[in-house]
Structure formats: C-alpha cells, structure tokens
C-alpha cells in the first residue's frame, strides 16, 4: 500500500511514516500544503493521512480537491481540533475517518487498515494471519476455517492485534482502542487482562499461540 502523510510537524510525520513502513508499505511525506497538493497531483496513493492545519493551507481544501477529482484514495484526517463541527465537516467532505491528536500510532494504523478494508479501496473483507482468518463483515473469526466464538470485545481485540502485528501494545493503548474515552475512567488496566487472557485461551485451544507478553506488562502479536 502507498500512503501519503501530509503533516507539517516533521517529528510526527517521521514517527507515523516509520510505524506504517514496517508493514512493507510505502510512505511518502509532505510537510506543507504545496508539497502535499503537488504530490497528490503527481502520484496515486491508496490513502492520505491528512492534517487539517497545514502551514500554508487547510487540509480541508486538499480534501475538497481530491473528492472533486473523484480520486480513489482513502482519507484519514488528523487534527488537533476535536470539535464536532470540524469532524462533521471533514466527514461530510468525504474523509473516511477522523482522528484527534494525540493518538496512538497503533490506533491510527488500525483506522487506516479499516478504511482500506472497506471494499472500494481494493481491500478485502477478510484478514488472514497464519491460520487465523477474520471476516470483517460478519465480525467472526476462524482458525483453520473452524469458527471460534469470540465476544465482541475479544473480536475487536484480535483484529487490533492482527492489524498491529509485531508491535508492542501496552494495556493503555488496548484499553483506549476498545473503550475509547471511557477507558480514562479506569484506574488500572487489569480489566484488559481478563479479556486478553480469555482470547489467548481460546486461540491457544486451537493451537494459535501468537499473543505474547512484552516487557512484563505489554503485549505483542507475533508469529514465532
């Protein structure tokens, strides 16, 4: 997959690119409005990660142009402004998702994958990792084509793991992904442990031992 990261903060741009690159994707970057619009004119991208406040212009204008040209390209808006109006405006203009700063790279990654999966960008309704297959339409999981019954949260968890395979995920990241803003209510993330443990048990029963503990309190989904 080929991404364009249009973000004027070089540090953030670099980190995002690095994180996404590790999935054998091609990440190009643009640091301002002109560079972004130039690259969008010249090349085709599967997905654009678009910052709304680019130094020399508004990301919304870029989005408008993209949609006017009917480009087959997913757009995820990242913005420092979490006002609903901004969000709605972005989504109305045709953005596929909206994420507010600060965010976890794993979360951004999972959103990107979700956007790409939604058919029209050449994605697939099923995700496969070794012998595990997820049907994202039916929200069901299979190991060696044998369905395993997962709770809603366990399914989300597994999807999140597979999307961010090979990366270390802390409990906080997982909690935030699964419960969004409600996760800040939690004093500790022991609660996550229950869900992860249940999922791990179910997978292990079918012989899929991919959830590994990293640094004592984090998790990593990785093929041995």
């Amino acid at each position: 997959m080929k991404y364009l990261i249009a973000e004027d903060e070089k540090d953030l741009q670099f980190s995002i690119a690095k994180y996404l690159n590790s999935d054998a994707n091609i990440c190009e970057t643009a640091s301002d409005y002109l560079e972004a619009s130039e690259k969008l004119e010249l090349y085709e991208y599967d997905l654009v990660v678009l910052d709304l406040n680019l130094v020399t212009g508004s990301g919304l204008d870029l989005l408008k142009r993209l949609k006017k040209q009917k480009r087959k390209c997913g757009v995820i808006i990242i913005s420092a402004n979490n006002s609903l109006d901004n969000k709605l405006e972005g989504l109305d203009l045709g953005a596929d998702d909206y994420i507010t700063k600060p965010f976890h790279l794993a979360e951004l990654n999972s959103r990107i994958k979700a956007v790409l999966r939604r058919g029209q960008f050449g994605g697939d309704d099923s995700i496969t990792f070794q012998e595990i297959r997820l049907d994202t339409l039916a929200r069901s999981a299979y190991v060696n084509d044998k369905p395993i019954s997962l709770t809603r949260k366990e399914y989300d968890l597994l999807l999140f793991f597979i999307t961010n395979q090979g990366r270390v995920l802390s409990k906080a990241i997982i909690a935030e992904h699964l419960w969004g803003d409600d996760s800040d209510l939690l004093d500790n993330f022991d609660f996550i442990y229950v869900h992860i443990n249940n999922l791990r048990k179910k997978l292990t029963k079918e012989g899929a031992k991919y959830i590994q503990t990293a640094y004592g309190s984090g998790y990593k989904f990785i093929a041995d």
Partner: protein
Amino acid sequence: MMISGVALYFYTKILLEKEIEEELYSNKARIERILAQEGEFIDFESILQVKKVQHQEAEQLQDTLIYDPSQNEIELFRQLSGTKIINGTNYKITVRAMIIESEDILYAIVFTFFTIIFLAFIFLFYLNKSRNEKLWKPFFTNLTKLKNFSVRSDKPLQLVDSEVLEFHELHKELKILTSKIQTDYKNLKQFTEDVSHEMQTPLAIMQAKIDTVINDGEINETQFQQFSSLQSDISRLKQLNKKLILLAKIEKDQFTTNEVISLNKLINDTVLNFKELFSIDFLIEENATINVKMDFSLATVLCNNLLSNAVKHNFNNQSIDIKIFDRKLQVINAGEEMLSRPDQVFERFYKESRQKESTGLGLSIVKKICDYYHFVPTYSFETVHYSKKNRGRHIFQIDFSAYKD
C-alpha cells in the same frame, strides 16, 4: 424661613404701633381743634376723654389695659395723654386706640407662613418629582440594563444616552468598560481553547515518539514501564484538554442541536457501558420517565460524568444506586464521610483526595451543562447508621423540573 418669620413679626408689630401712634396724635389734634372751635367735647368711652385739669402735664405715650364690657375681656390699648390750654382752660386729652395683640399677629404670620410653605412644598415636590423622573430616567434605564448585563453574552451593552453631561460621560465610560470586559472575557475563553488545541500537537508528537521507541526494541522492562506511565500521563493531559475544550464550547454556546432525549434510556445505555469496565453493581430504580430536550452529546457527557464520578469515588466497591423519580435523577455511591467542602464539589479542579487520578473537571462539566439547560444539580451526604460496612452515601441529584422547552 424662621428668621424671616421673626423679622416679619417684629416689623409688622413696629409698623402697627407706629400707625396707631400716628392715629393717636392725629385724633388728639382733631380733638384739640374741636375743643378750640366748640369749647366742649363729648367723651367717647375709653377711646377719647377730655378732662379739665389744674396743672399742665407732659405728653405721655403708654400701654394700658382696659376692660371692654362688650367683649367681656381686658383689651390692650395704646394711650396718648397730654394737656393743652385751649381758650384759657387747661384740658387733659387722652386718646386711646386698641392695639392688635402680638399673639394675633404671631398667629396670623405663622399660619400664613405655614400655608405658603406647605403649598410651596407640595408644588415643589411634584415639580421636582416629575423633573427628576425625566432627568434620571436614562440613568435608571441604564442601571437596569447593567444589572441584566452578562459578561458571557456576546451582545454589547446597549445604553440609553442622555443630554445630562454626567450621565453622558458615565454612559460613555460604562460602554468602554463593559466592552473591554467582554473582549477580555472572550479572549480568555479563546485562550483556554487555543492553548488546549495547541497542546494537542506536541502531545501527539510525544506519544508518537514513545510508540516508536517502544517498537524499536532495545529497551528493557523498566524502561517500558516508564514509557507506559508517560503514555498514561499524556492521555491524562489529553483528557484534561478535551474537557477544557468542552467547557469552553459550552460557554461559547456552541451546542444548539437539541433533540428530545429519554434520560431513562440514556442512563441504561451508560450503565451498560460501565458494566463492561467495572465489576460493580449498578441498581437502577425507575419510578418516572424523564424526557429532556438537549444536545445528545452533552446528555451523554452528563450521564457519563455523573456515573464515572460515582464509580471513581465509590467506597468498598459497593453498588451504585441510580434513582429516577419525579423529574429528578439521583446517582448514589457509598462513601466514608461527608466531603469537607461540599459547596465546592462542582467547582473546577476541586479534588477531595490526592490519590485518585482525576482531572477535577468532571463535575464542573456536569454543573456547566446543568446551568446551560437550567437543571439544578445538588450534592448531599446521608449517613447510614444500620450498616457497619457502609458508612454513608454521597447523593448527586439533578432536578430537571426547572427546565422548560
């Protein structure tokens, strides 16, 4: 007034006395003339007397009291007596005139004065009143407007101008002052929001960098713990920012999409969400149906914040009671003791305990939302005697009855 009254009294008295004396002299002269011509004079009782005397006497002017039988009282007379030789005979002529008593003069003056004063007073009172009313009208109109003035409102203070220079100046200064206050207030609000927004990007960079470091490998367990804790700090800042922005937005009146919301349903949904996160019992007691017209996201925030506050400060993992009755919603959690400053529980950054990681904004957002829709939030504490485990209950109540569409 008093002085002029006294002066008038004496002046009148002197004037009258003079007049009487003049009259006496002229009467005397008249009698003398009659005597000279006619040779005799018939006495007028008390008033004019002519007597033949042997000796000459000096002319004398004096006061005398004479009984007046017709009026049956003793009257004060002024008397002039003198001798005169007319046609060789020595006559003593006495003329008298009744004096108006000083008391009468005094009464007359006092009465007149008071009447005049009274009339003048009434006249001036009403004149003044109507004049003042006219004169102060702009002042009082402006005062009412000032009382109704709110810094939060976007509308500038519309004052009535006046022709009176002082009022005009006051009006001018007030206008400058209030517009300055309003601008400052607006700037302050904007500042909070701007700062919160500006902080998001650096926070995003920090978080992204931590994510990168963690995934780069080459760190040990302790370092991972520290990075994780850094991440949770960042997420706390993020929550704080979000809440500050929400507060600013409520203050800026940016929630106008109202819809009818069933509070019962919302509470049940929120509880369902919470049950996933906490192993605490939530007991919902619905004795009424409450529908309110408000912004959906604010309603969600309201329920979320009330419940999360109850969960956060719950004691001993006891059950949380939610009661819906009349037009009231109560969220009740167990607690050890009454808050030390219950009146400040809805204030920003009020924290009862230092241990809990809370932004201190949750309840102030509840209050803001309530204020916005004219709901009434209250806090009370109920001591429970019958149970040793459960020492008391914190009751947060929201009264929706004051709310009108």
